[in-house]
């Protein structure tokens, strides 16, 4: 009996393919919107997390100036190597401390030149900033100490200057001196604020200080905190040490700032999660509207099929069977719409994540949830039309024009 009712419902859908398609359109759009939004949101969250971790895990960034963000620290006092030494010796639970100096420089290889950022640092930077090597080596201690003209280049510089040629062992011209390329960095991609992290040339700190900036100061100090240690505590200790070294009296504001990447990561992923939720909620409203569409068309369909329902009732269909048939029709339509929506969403998600260059991952939870939600919408919005159909009086239904 249930089986034959299901058969009747499916015959009905097949009989009115065009109307069935229009009925489910709202659900299709609703489901695909929900899934696409959530998938994109998750992708964005993932992308942010990836960017933060590419910056270095458990990393503190110590910079002069009060402002946090690009352009900060214009007039504030710089750090120097003694500050670095103080941090290394007085702050516990740290893995590496890397002083860095950056400068915008044009580099030349062969007939090509390229404007890039040159970073002078120590080998600790490779640990702290989470760099990996694609080829060659990092600096030797002797190279770092003596300030030798050796460099490790990023993937963007390699692409722009070398093309398919292997860069290791060649000589790169950096601001008037030749520099031996000893290593090639593995790609990192964009940073959280959209900078190309691979567009870089790393040299020993002394080399940059002596030959490029001409100063003994350090721009930024990267501090890599040991795993399992709360980075915020270490940040507090660094702040206290720096206030002492810079003789900042109580009540005065810091003239430097400590960026905690973990904190940034938490904030950013919190923001993207909230956005995902918001987008999902907006999309869920469209799913609800889709459900109302189903009810609307089912109600019209009940009116349109009044005589037919009269025939069914006259030839011996029970009220419950007619109710069930219409309910199954609504559920089948709604969950069919859900399936089409899932297919559409998968397609849209793959294309959009590619366009937005965020990672795509199939989220089983939201797909299953959307499917059952659409089926539930079928029950919810199919019930009223189904009951109306079942409660028709066969005599008046048969006379219906």
């Amino acid at each position: 009996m249930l089986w034959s009712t299901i058969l009747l419902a499916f015959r009905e859908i097949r009989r009115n393919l065009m109307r069935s398609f229009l009925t489910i359109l709202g659900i299709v759009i609703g489901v695909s919107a929900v899934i696409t939004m959530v998938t994109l949101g998750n992708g964005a969250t993932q992308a942010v997390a990836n960017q933060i971790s590419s910056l270095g895990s458990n990393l503190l960034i110590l910079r002069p100036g009060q402002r946090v963000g690009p352009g900060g620290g214009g007039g504030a006092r710089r750090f120097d190597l003694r500050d670095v030494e103080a941090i290394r010796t007085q702050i516990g639970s740290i893995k590496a401390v890397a002083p860095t100096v950056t400068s915008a420089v044009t580099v030349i290889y062969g007939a090509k030149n390229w404007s890039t950022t040159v970073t002078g640092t120590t080998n600790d930077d490779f640990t702290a900033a989470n760099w990996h090597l694609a080829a060659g080596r990092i600096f030797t201690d002797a190279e770092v100490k003596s300030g030798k003209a050796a460099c490790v280049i990023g993937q963007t510089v390699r692409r722009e200057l070398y093309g398919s040629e292997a860069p290791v062992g060649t000589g790169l011209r950096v601001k008037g001196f030749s520099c031996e390329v000893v290593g090639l960095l593995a790609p990192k991609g964009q940073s959280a604020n959209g900078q190309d992290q691979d567009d870089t040339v790393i040299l020993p700190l002394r080399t940059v200080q002596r030959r490029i900036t001409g100063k003994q100061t350090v721009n930024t100090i990267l501090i890599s905190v040991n795993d399992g240690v709360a980075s915020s505590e270490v940040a507090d200790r660094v702040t206290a040490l720096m206030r002492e070294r810079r003789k900042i009296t109580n009540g005065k504001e810091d003239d430097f700032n400590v960026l905690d990447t973990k904190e940034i990561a938490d904030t950013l992923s919190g923001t993207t999660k909230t956005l995902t939720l918001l987008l999902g909620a907006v999309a869920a409203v469209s799913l609800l509207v889709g459900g109302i569409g189903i009810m609307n068309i089912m109600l019209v369909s009940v009116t349109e099929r009044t005589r037919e329902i009269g025939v069914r009732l006259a030839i011996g269909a029970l009220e419950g069977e007619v109710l069930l048939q219409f309910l199954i029709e609504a559920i089948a339509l709604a969950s069919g719409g859900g399936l089409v929506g899932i297919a559409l969403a998968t397609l849209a998600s793959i294309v959009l994540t590619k366009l937005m260059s965020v990672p795509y991952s199939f989220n089983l939870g939201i797909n299953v949830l959307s499917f059952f939600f659409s089926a539930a919408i079928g029950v919810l919005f199919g019930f009223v039309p189904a009951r109306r159909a079942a409660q028709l009086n066969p005599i008046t239904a048969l006379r219906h024009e």
Partner: protein
Amino acid sequence: MSAEPLPAAAGSRPLLELVGLRKTYGEGPAAIQALDGVDLSIEAGEFVAVMGPSGSGKSTAMNILGCLDTPSGGAYIFRGVHVEKLSGKQRTLLRRYFLGFVFQGFNLLARTSALENVELPLLYRGVSASDRRAAARHALESVGLKGWETHTPAELSGGQQQRVAIARAIVTKPAVLLADEPTGNLDSKRSREIMDLITALNRDLGITILMVTHEADMAAYAGRIVHFHDGRVESDVKNGHNGPDGQGRTAHLGEAN
């Protein structure tokens, strides 16, 4: 396959019996007395034409006989069972297992093949797919539509559509076929063909037939003509060439009932 929900008819009683049947629509002074004490008994195998002007109560009587409506008073006894005392669900089951309906407007499911249209009542009976198909083919064949199984109503003429509707009504091998102006939408040639078919169902399969019509030449096919007027039976005449003796002729389809 399916257990009969009601006891079989007692031998001596008529198949259908209306006793002092009344039907009132509305209440108070505005109430309309559609049926005002109708007594009628119909034996198994009869072919009865029901006639009368509109408002005479013939449609109301047919609805009650078809278990689609309930009387306000009096009794309707079908196969020994008091239908007026049954619940809506029991009346539905009575229709499902004992009655077949043919309407003036054919009322076939659009965009559905003739075969699937004929299968419909069997679906509600829970008949298996292969039995359903076989019975539907057989019914279509017996109304002369062999080879038209896959055609949809839009591809069939009016007469053919009514044949499909008749096949749908008889596929369950009903005890009674209720036809509401079956030729009302057809020209005279098709009307005669349909009437010949209905007469043959009565004569060869022993199906009891109740037919509402307002055309005297259609009523002439019946063995008995009942005239309604103002909610009462005005006249009840036997027609010479047919009659209740039709029940004696068994037929290949009718036995199962």
